[in-house]
């Protein structure tokens, strides 16, 4: 059953098998075509680990994130989360699963209502669940604001008043409000400044060690992928073309696509000719 089978005693937290997602290509004339955004993707993630999904734009990374967060319905395949098949269970059961898988986007500005205060943004998911009192929600919001490095003074601010880094921290805090098992970060660092990227990356490492968080880190930054992840899967044209321990992918890339991705990473060390002469 367990696909990777690294640890035979342990079931993976998230097990994906042969996932396919096709979109119809809209054309006015001509034959109907379909785009295979995901073309048979299989992998598993174990509790407390980070898997990085790397690949160029258009390789299907974000479609994968959407399918895993139950925001898109895959055309076929199996997504097994905590040993439940997420594609077979009904909407009612899905509602108990959704809080456990949280998605963080590249541009957090677009995922907040700019006229809402930080406190409202943070407590909305809990209010929807309706299990906690207002005081309990406030306490949790305060604790999380502090944990992600925003002070609780922030709770009265509007989302539009925050800087990019603060918004991304808020997005992480909101995702954590529901105490998820899996955090999916879809290019969540790409739009941030280098110094803020480092802060958020550290926050993720801390969360992982303190909460045993499982992360799916989608990126095109191979250096950050290698820094954060235990394993890296490289995607191209809807397929995983290479998957292995971060170290190995970096040192012995097996496919041309991985080598290209690595070669395209700008490096700080001076003197190395890196910009191709065209």
């Amino acid at each position: 059953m367990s696909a990777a089978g690294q640890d035979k005693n342990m079931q993976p937290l998230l097990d994906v098998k042969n996932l396919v997602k096709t979109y119809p290509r809209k054309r006015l004339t001509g034959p109907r075509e379909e785009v295979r955004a995901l073309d048979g993707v299989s992998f598993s993630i174990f509790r407390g680990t980070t898997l990085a999904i790397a690949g160029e734009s258009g390789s299907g990374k974000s479609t994968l994130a959407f399918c895993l967060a139950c925001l898109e319905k895959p055309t076929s395949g199996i997504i097994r989360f905590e040993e439940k098949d997420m594609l077979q269970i009904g909407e009612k059961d899905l509602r108990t699963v959704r809080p456990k898988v949280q998605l963080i986007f590249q541009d957090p500005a677009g995922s907040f209502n700019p006229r809402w205060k930080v406190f409202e943004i943070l407590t909305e998911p809990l209010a929807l669940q309706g299990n906690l009192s207002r005081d309990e929600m406030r306490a949790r919001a305060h604790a999380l604001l502090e944990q992600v490095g925003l002070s609780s003074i922030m709770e009265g601010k509007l989302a539009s008043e925050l800087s990019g880094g603060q918004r991304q921290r808020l997005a992480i805090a909101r995702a954590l409000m529901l105490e998820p098992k899996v955090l999916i970060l879809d290019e969540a660092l790409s739009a941030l400044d280098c110094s803020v990227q480092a802060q958020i990356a550290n926050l993720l490492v801390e969360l992982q060690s303190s909460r045993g968080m499982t992360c799916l880190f989608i990126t095109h930054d191979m250096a950050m992928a290698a820094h954060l992840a235990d394993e890296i899967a490289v995607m191209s044209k809807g397929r995983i073309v290479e998957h292995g321990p971060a170290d190995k992918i970096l040192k012995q890339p097996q496919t041309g696509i991985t080598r290209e991705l690595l070669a395209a990473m700008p490096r700080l060390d001076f003197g190395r000719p890196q910009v191709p002469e065209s």
Partner: protein
Amino acid sequence: MGTILEVRDLQVAYRSRGGDLFRALAGISFCLESGEVLGVLGESGSGKSTLAVSLLRLFRRNSVVVSGAVLFDGRDLLKVEPSELQAIRGKSISLIFQEPSVALHPTMRVGRQVRQILDAHGMGNSDQLVRRTGEVFEALFGEEAERIARSYPHQLSGGQRQRVLIAQAIVCRPSVVVADEPTASLDPTTQMEILGVFRALQKGLGLTMIFITHSPALLSGFADRILILYGGRVAELGVASEVLVSPKHPYTHALFRSIPSLDEPRDGRKRILPAIPRDSNLSSLPRAGCPFEPRCPERMDICKSENPGLVNLSESHLASCFRNENQ
């Protein structure tokens, strides 16, 4: 060589709705030498985009030029008549923005969008315009030139759209091209490709460029000199090799250290990056002292109250830090 553009003590502020002034640029001076690529490195809020628009006086309505001058061709661009400025924009100095998808007209073929710029500056009769547009497309797209010129923006990839913006920027053979984060929205492979285009143009046409970015790694091997902006001030300015290899400002140093490297040692344990603590927004508050002081690992008493001026470390390397004054 020679100075082609000079920015002198530029101070630009934004007026908030409450009427308060927030300074985005707090006194910036530098010279741009003919034929060089000046890399401007700064985080959000450092004033780098304000700098880009200041050079062409493309200010937002709520911005106020407190002081300073942008000297180009013997004129101060902050003072010249609007009509004179219009003749300079896009012709002598052109600007490339970050987002190629919003910078192009969605329902006009891109060839025409490039040709319009020539037309606006009266660069010849229609045959000449068509020929010049064709030349530029050929230089940027090679064999695909004609097909691309006939395409609409939505039919092009991000990298191709960015090349169209570059075509617009260079079609009038400007003396200076200012590029504000031109590769930020592209994936790494395309990013490298566009950098390659810039480099080829710079070599081929002797283009003078200001390349604004938040990613230090992009500048290595590309920029001739690097200007580090922090909190609306110049933190460091020097030859790229010196700034990248032995940065002299604590901010530059800390920034470079916080970036994960592909070559970092790995032993299975997850590392904490040496991040710069706290928020860069601290620097934008109107405050006395060095803008980096609240986050600086090497701060001293004097940093709180006084702002360090730029100190010449060598002929080609300046940094604004009291640490360097003592040496």
